[in-house]
């Protein structure tokens, strides 16, 4: 180890405490005043924040909240996913499992035969959403998940599509992402973004 030359070293001394600081009592009093302020506010009901009566009272979450996934449908009600594996590649928790197959529809080449997300393994980071080139996967504001077994929490394609129906048709979650389009392979040339906007309305 090479020693640092003395000229390169700057010595810094801690500031000296004055008398008030040395006896600590003013700081203690200051803390007590803050506590009393909050006490008064709470007792008199002036405090803006309050406890929500969950679960009777459901929170209204911002639309960018990252909860349970859904698989979006296109305007014909088919799964929008083209099974490109971008989400499972981007996923840091390796919780997405896709089996691709040649698509039964003429306007695209590939579709997911199965699409399973392990909701217990997921860390809800939203990378899948960002990676998706056709806006097929999104995270919704549904945050409370229950299941009786680990298998219950493996959400398959049907389950994920039902989350879409639940959130979009009821209007709780709009289709947010409008990022990339995948040109001819994914969508009919004239479809544009109608799928997203019609679902939103």
């Amino acid at each position, binding site marked *: 180890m090479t020693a640092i030359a003395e000229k390169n070293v700057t010595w810094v001394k801690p500031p000296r405490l004055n008398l008030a600081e040395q006896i600590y009592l003013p700081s203690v009093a200051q803390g007590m005043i803050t506590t009393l302020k909050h006490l008064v506010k709470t007792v008199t009901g002036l405090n803006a924040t309050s406890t929500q009566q969950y679960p009777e009272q459901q929170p209204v979450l911002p639309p960018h909240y990252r909860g349970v996934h859904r698989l979006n449908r296109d305007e014909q009600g088919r799964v929008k996913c083209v*099974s*490109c594996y971008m989400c499972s590649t981007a996923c840091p928790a390796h919780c997405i499992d896709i089996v691709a197959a*040649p698509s039964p529809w003429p306007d*695209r080449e590939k579709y997911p035969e199965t699409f399973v997300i392990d909701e217990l393994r997921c860390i809800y980071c939203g990378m899948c959403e960002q990676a998706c080139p056709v806006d097929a996967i999104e995270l919704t504001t549904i945050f409370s998940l229950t299941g009786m077994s680990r298998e219950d929490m493996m959400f398959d394609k049907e389950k994920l599509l039902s989350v879409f129906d639940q959130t979009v048709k009821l209007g709780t979650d709009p289709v947010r992402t409008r990022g990339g389009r995948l040109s001819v392979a994914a969508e009919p040339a004239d479809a544009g973004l109608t799928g997203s906007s019609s679902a939103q309305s």
Partner: protein
Amino acid sequence: MATVLVNDIPVDIGDEKLNCIQAAERAGVTIPHYCWHPALSVVASCRMCLVMVGEKKPDGTVAMQPKVVPGCQTPVKDGTVIQTLDPKSTGAQQSTLESLLLNHPLDCPVCDKAGECLLQDYSFQFGKATSRMVDEKNTPPNKPNIGPNISLFTDRCIMCSRCVRFTREVAGTAELHVVQRGNHSEIDVFPGHPIDNKLASNVVDLCPVGALASNDFLYKQRVWNLKTVKSVCTGCSTGCSINLDTNKSVVYRLRPRFNPRAQGHFMCDEGRLGYHNVNSALRFTKPLERTNSGTQAIDWQQSVAKIDQSVRSAAQTDAGKIWFVLSPFLTTEEAWLLASYARSISPFCRIVSGPVPSHGVDDNYPKDRKGNPSTNPVKFTIRAEKCPNRRGIEAVVAHFQKSPATFADLLAACDRGEVAVAFVTSGYSTAFPAWGTETAERLGKAGFLIVHDMLPSALSDAAAIVIPAAAFSEKDGTYINHAGLAQTTEAGCVPQRGARTDGQIYLDLLGRRGLVRAIEIRKEIGKAVPALAALATGELGEHGVFVTARA
């Protein structure tokens, strides 16, 4: 000595005849190219390799040619100067890529080639981010049945014509051709003549973009999820070097790996698609014992102990009635271990080579246009001998068995009832079996038949003990091809469902401790067997070594 200057890096090319792409590669400089392939003729049609080329005069001045030239068809000589970083070169690369991408659908997310696509790589390295194309792109329909194993995604094609030249020059059958002109050019076949020659799937590897896809691999995996190991095809005695692509211990595809000593650049479809028994659900998973009360699974320790016990008790009466059959599907190391075990029991145990499955005659390519044999120089051979390691097994057998015995001798001895224990290793491909039910019946007459195989067969039905064998993708080892080229193969998968590799079972039988390490055994063989002395180095390198002087 000829010296070429590539971006001011001097490269000594000796007296080789190289083009600019090859010379630049020696200097570690990539000249991007699509249509040029070392095994095919030069057409200079893709224009991707356009570079500035000039000459260094004896007086030291450099005279560059006024415009870019295609690097693939420009030979280099002493004093040639190649400038890939010249603004004219990079401008040409960018413009060419923009032109190639005019009609390309950019559907990378659903394209099987994504991740190993030269269009992606070169666009990233040499292209520009934007396109000035304002018109509609051409979207010609796909041709999913251009061949039984091949799909053509017509819109992704960049018309490099590698596939067309391959079918004309290497396969010879010339199924593929270019139809239409200019912007509307497409690859196609004649109606009723799909691309179905035995080398057809090589066009999938040759295709620099995702236009030609293998139906076998289509949509199975994304390529970046695959783990690749260097392996050897076990389909025939050519022993093509291959890349074995696996994911989570499942084999998804085999690709040829360039090996000038074995097969060159390509491989045949028989070998390429012949791996499916590896993933078969019918494979044995546990050792089976057949008793009077029926068949039952036993555990590994038990099976090894039972085999050892039966062999040893038979050796006490007459060791000459114990036969070991070494299948040509075993690696040389495995054969060595099993033969060593036989010798450790008694010097009188008989060791024979298993039958060599031979089907038809050596199939040489190129063919003529009608698929008949032609007189052109041979560029690829599919051997009639459908096993990878006949020579390795023969060398091991010859080392241990001084008095020659054959598989036919074993069958004759079975008929006479003179076989106490027969240990038969198999692993033969189901497409080219080495024996039928008749041979299996004759072997069944052995007092105690031990069968080491992957899949159920008439022979395993007759066996007293069946031990599951590992597939070629699950074991390390050495195969010696028809020409005496020893190549190592690497395990890409762990043996399925708790099976053990063949070498491990033989090591356990031998009573040697620890896990089997092919490289150590290879060194052992090299020291002990003069005919296989070339194996003594352990590592045989990417291209393998010849165990004998080349004929």
